[in-house]
């Protein structure tokens, strides 16, 4: 395997902006941001193999109270419609509940990217009631409805804990008709391949989760694995990098471009720096020159119209049916 990888030619990746131009699409420009996606840090109780954050139990990067207050100032001042909190496991940040409570008080819709097993961490058993009481939209990772695939990606024993956590969320009303408590699942491919059609795999998940585990949920989002950080390490180690990139590039779908999440979202790092998306944040690809650089200087009007910085990982959001934090972007 190793010698084969060494012998592969270096992959020439066509510049993403050039690909846009070749399809008659202009350079990517942002609209006025309506979503603040806040990455509160890299600490996580899991260390998933596809993680684009390289999150894990030994990471120490974590949003301070001072930065959290600056985020909340921005939410209040500019009446931010949606606050999307992610990590790591965001619930492990000491300011997490403050961020949720105050964002809700400011009238924002709050969604939390929840790994399910954090409910079993000491001192976090109350999370499901906390979510319910603050009408938080829960977006939970579950790459497959079987243990083998889920544990292969997320760690041994994760699937069984995830099923228990989902049942408890259902008991709280999450994913149940008429409650308005949204429980959405996220499917990530367990390997170097693209996700299935979102509607089709959602149908399969709904049937299988109900039949096997008596679990209900609202929507399933398919998200493509990004060729950065830990997933990039996996691609290189397993000899899949070239083929995966070729697949993403060959799968470029111009119909996904208008729905790219970077157009109306701003990503805030644990240290308060601003980025076009969580992926750009992880590879330290900063905002275009002239745009506000930190949450202290956040100003939606100054961010509107900025040029979005791109790199080869952007092909991950435009391949096939497209990918975003809200799932597929094209039918």
């Amino acid at each position, binding site marked *: 395997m190793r010698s084969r990888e060494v012998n592969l030619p270096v992959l020439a990746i066509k510049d993403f902006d050039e690909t846009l131009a070749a399809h008659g699409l202009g350079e990517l420009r942002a609209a006025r941001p309506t979503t603040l996606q806040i990455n509160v840090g890299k600490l996580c109780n899991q260390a998933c193999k596809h993680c684009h954050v390289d999150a894990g139990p030994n990471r120490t990067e974590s949003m301070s109270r001072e930065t959290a207050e600056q985020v909340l100032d921005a939410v209040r001042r500019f009446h931010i419609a949606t606050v999307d909190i992610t990590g790591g496991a965001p619930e492990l940040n000491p300011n997490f509940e403050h961020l949720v409570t105050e964002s809700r008080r400011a009238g924002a819709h709050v969604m939390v990217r929840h790994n399910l097993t954090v409910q079993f961490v000491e001192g976090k058993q109350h999370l499901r009631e906390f979510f319910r009481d603050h009408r938080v939209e829960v977006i939970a990772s579950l790459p*497959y409805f*079987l243990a083998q*695939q889920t544990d292969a990606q997320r760690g041994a024993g994760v699937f069984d804990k995830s099923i228990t956590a989902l049942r408890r969320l259902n008991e709280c009303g999450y994913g149940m008709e008429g409650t308005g408590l949204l429980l959405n699942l996220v499917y990530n*491919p367990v390997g170097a*391949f693209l996700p*299935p*059609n979102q509607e*089709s795999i959602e149908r399969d998940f709904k049937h299988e989760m109900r039949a096997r585990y008596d679990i209900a949920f609202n929507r399933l989002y398919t998200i493509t694995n990004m060729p950065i950080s830990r997933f990039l390490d996996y691609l290189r180690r397993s000899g899949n990098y070239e083929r995966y990139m070729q697949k993403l590039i060959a799968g470029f779908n111009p119909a996904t471009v208008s729905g790219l999440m970077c157009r109306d979202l701003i990503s805030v790092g644990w240290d308060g720096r601003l980025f076009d998306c969580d992926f750009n944040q992880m590879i330290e690809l900063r905002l275009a020159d002239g745009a506000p650089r930190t949450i202290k200087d956040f100003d939606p009007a100054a961010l509107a119209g900025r040029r979005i910085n791109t790199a080869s990982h952007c092909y991950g959001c435009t391949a096939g049916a497209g990918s975003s934090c809200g799932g597929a972007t094209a039918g």
Partner: protein
Amino acid sequence: MHYYEEDDLERFGDIGKHRPDLFEKFMAWYEAVQQDGALSRREKALIGLAVAHALQCPYCIDAYAKACLEAGSNMEQMTEAIHMASAIRGGATLIHGVQAHNAVNKVSM
């Protein structure tokens, strides 16, 4: 060097260098066959995987194993499809035993 090279799968389009009109007709039909219809793409990919094994075509096995994953199938389902192909191949062999019996009966007293 061996006859089947993994990279050759991506060179399928080279066949269209000669008589492109025929290749284009084939591809249009091939792609239409794959679409969701009375059967889903996922079911069709599983049929493709079973046929690929029955034909023992390494290109098709490679392509349809990945197509099955990208359609949301798992290894249990894929393995059942391969067993179906194997069972029908095995059954097809065995049922020809009747031909042998007939041939023997014809020349036997």
